[in-house]
């Protein structure tokens, strides 16, 4: 903000200059600079992509109904699981957990009027639909077949579709790098006065660790895809072993990002759980500092564990051993979090709201997925499990049962803040139980199918089913139950639409929560805070009065500031 040199300010005092609310549909809802509107845009976009990627998942499940399923050609099946994985990772989970959730909650919780660079925020959202269209356009070019990791040399056989895939994910990478940068600066520089690092809500700690990884790791992904793109288009031999390149190099570059990426998915969910559990157990969070620092420990360690995805790819035994040990080590901060959450529940007064149900469900499914992660980190066990449905089960427990479940917990929790209405608890309980049962019934049998050796990514499992006749039953069981998740997400969507008109008015603070977003009206005004609050303590001590001053509901102390509503001016280029 170039105060006073080029753009004259409307107000007299430079602190109190006015920026009138955005006018007109385009400025307000399409190219909006408001973090809350951008969060909503991410939310809708993410759900639309989830609809597409989810329907691909159901097609995959239908194909596996019979060992020699004939729903689609094997070629089409390859493109289905490739785009299902790619879209779920980059167009659904990351936009939802960082774009939607982070954008909505983070500035409110730190007492800021917006993120540090609203214009970059808008840019990083608008890259996303472009990337999505590019990704789905691979179908017009014959489809990408190499799975969401696009390992060369297989991916190089895809030609134009492979190049389009690279371009799409490169764009997503740029978008999430920008978001990471923006969030880092926002959290470091724009916290309300008095909100020291150890007074930040735990969701902010999680967002900070996520933003750190988004900013650094995602560029490595963009580089890997840029190199792969060059190989596709200009035949530059980075990864072609015939010309001195190395496919293992791609795996290194890819997983250097993609392992931190799983923590990019899961850390915001950790943050959500750390917010929801104390509120609905009516108890201070157990081990605040341990949870906060374990987020950072995870963020740092996650840069040093990537090669555990590559044990069978031909890396040296010393590297295998090193990465096995570091991967075990990253289980420690995660375990600290899980135990702290359980200790938070201990002797609390637990209110089983929908959000709390999802949070409890998260504790179960995520912990389970984390434990199978330890199996996979062990080199000898991994040689058996790699490339089987055991891996599929593991990462769905972590990503769908962890990150997505955390996000689903966040929806009923922050929906009242975003819309001013409570969601229907009755529909919410139904959608939780449908999701929880459907999810576990779908993915749990994959563990033993995988241990028996059922290979992932195969359109037909005739050979496997011959040796393991029960495989057909379990696959049909999974397919049936997977539709419960569809029903659950549909019910959730209906609940959100229905509650906009019929939900009970939420008021400022329906949950009795103590973080800053619950001190302003629901939905928040576009400037968020009339007066930036001053923070005196952590937000988790339920037996004490709120540790803030200058709150909006102390408005008697502040005369209606109508024209003097502060808002962080969008940062312009130049001076």
């Amino acid at each position, binding site marked *: 903000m170039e105060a006073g040199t080029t753009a004259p300010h409307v107000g007299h005092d430079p602190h109190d200059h006015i920026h009138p609310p955005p006018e007109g549909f385009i400025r307000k809802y399409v190219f909006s600079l408001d973090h809350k509107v951008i969060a909503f845009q991410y939310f809708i976009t993410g759900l639309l992509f989830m609809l597409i990627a989810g329907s691909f998942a159901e097609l995959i499940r239908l194909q596996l109904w019979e060992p020699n399923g004939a729903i689609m050609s094997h070629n089409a099946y390859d493109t289905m699981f490739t785009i299902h994985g790619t879209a779920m990772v980059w167009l659904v989970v990351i936009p939802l957990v960082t774009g939607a959730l982070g954008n909505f909650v983070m500035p409110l919780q730190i007492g800021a009027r917006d993120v540090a660079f609203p214009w970059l925020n808008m840019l990083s959202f608008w890259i996303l639909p472009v990337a999505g269209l590019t990704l789905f356009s691979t179908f017009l070019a014959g489809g990408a077949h190499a799975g969401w990791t696009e390992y060369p040399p297989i991916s190089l056989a895809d030609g134009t579709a492979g190049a389009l895939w690279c371009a799409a994910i490169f764009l997503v990478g740029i978008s999430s790098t920008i978001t990471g940068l923006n969030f880092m600066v926002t959290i470091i520089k724009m916290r309300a006065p008095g909100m020291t690092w150890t007074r930040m809500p735990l969701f902010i700690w999680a967002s900070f660790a996520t933003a750190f990884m988004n900013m650094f790791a995602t*560029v490595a992904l963009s580089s890997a895809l840029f190199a792969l793109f060059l190989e596709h288009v200009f035949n*530059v031999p980075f990864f072609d072993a015939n010309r001195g390149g190395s496919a293992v190099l791609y795996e290194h*570059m890819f997983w250097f990002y993609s392992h931190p990426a799983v923590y990019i998915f899961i850390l915001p969910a950790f943050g959500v759980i750390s917010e929801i559990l104390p509120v609905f157990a009516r108890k201070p969070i157990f081990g605040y500092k341990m949870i906060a620092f374990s987020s950072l420990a995870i963020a740092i360690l996650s840069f040093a564990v990537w090669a555990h995805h590559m044990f069978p790819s031909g890396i040296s035994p010393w590297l295998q051993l090193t990465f096995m040990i570091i991967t075990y080590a990253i289980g420690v901060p995660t375990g600290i979090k899980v135990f702290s959450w359980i200790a938070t529940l201990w002797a609390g007064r637990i209110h089983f709201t929908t959000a709390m149900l999802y949070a409890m469900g998260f504790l179960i499914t995520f912990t389970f997925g984390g434990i199978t992660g330890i199996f996979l980190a062990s080199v000898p066990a991994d040689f058996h499990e790699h490339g089987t449905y055991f891996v599929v089960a593991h990462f769905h427990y972590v990503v769908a049962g962890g990150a997505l479940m955390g996000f689903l917990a966040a929806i009923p929790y922050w929906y009242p803040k975003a819309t001013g209405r409570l969601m229907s608890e009755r529909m919410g309980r139904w959608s939780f139980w449908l999701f929880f049962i459907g999810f576990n019934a779908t993915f749990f049998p994959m563990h033993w199918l995988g241990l028996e050796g059922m290979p992932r990514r195969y359109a037909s499992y005739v050979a496997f089913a011959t040796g393991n006749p029960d495989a057909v039953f379990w696959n049909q069981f999974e397919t049936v139950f997977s539709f419960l998740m569809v029903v659950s997400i549909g019910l959730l969507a209906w609940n959100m639409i229905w509650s906009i008109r019929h939900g009970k008015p939420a008021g400022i603070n329906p949950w009795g929560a103590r973080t800053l977003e619950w001190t302003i009206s629901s939905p928040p005004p576009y400037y968020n805070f009339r007066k930036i609050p001053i923070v005196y303590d952590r937000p988790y001590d339920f037996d004490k009065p709120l540790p803030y001053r200058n709150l909006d509901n102390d408005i008697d102390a502040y005369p209606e500031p109508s024209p003097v509503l502060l808002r962080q001016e969008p940062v312009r280029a130049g001076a």
Partner: protein
Amino acid sequence: MATAVATAPLAGHEAVAARYLEVDPVYAETRSIRLLGFVFFLLSDCVLFGAFIFAYVYLRISAPTWPPFVGNHRLPWFDTAFAALNSIVLFGSGVTMHFALENWKHLNRQKFYRWLIATIILGLGFLLGQAHEWTGVLRGGVTWPGSTMGASFFTLTGMHGFHVFVGVCYLTVLGLQARRGIYTGSKYFGLTAGTLYWHFVDVIWVVLFTLFYVW
């Protein structure tokens, strides 16, 4: 976040920011926000180069011979002498840019423009030198799609050259903005950012020069 400044003093270590605090607290705050954002941008850009440098080192270490063979022809080493000369041009431009910014701070506008133009000319000179270098390398049989050596060399130096090109455009725009009176003696964040970017491009070149011409 204006009120934050009004109620909470800036951290003591932000000595530079403190200089602006007396002039204009809003500017001091936004300047520090932008500076951090810009430094983070440069750091994430480092990761871009880092990933490709990793690729180059990986390919070079795992190659049986370096320079590698293409058919029966062993590729030649790069020409260190010329690259060293060209490096001096680029590092010289870092020095001139430093003088440009210092002169701006001391309100010597004319000297600022002179040093800035010198920087831009040196930057363009480096790009010309790189073009010469590339033609020499190509004549030696090292091509972009032909070998891992060419792949890593042309990609990395190409990315760096692109950064230099962007930098030249950036500095030109900054010069024009300065002429239009966008910056003042106490408010010149754009110039600081441009200088940082230009030094960043220099530092990357130190690493690339070492890895391609000295190693």
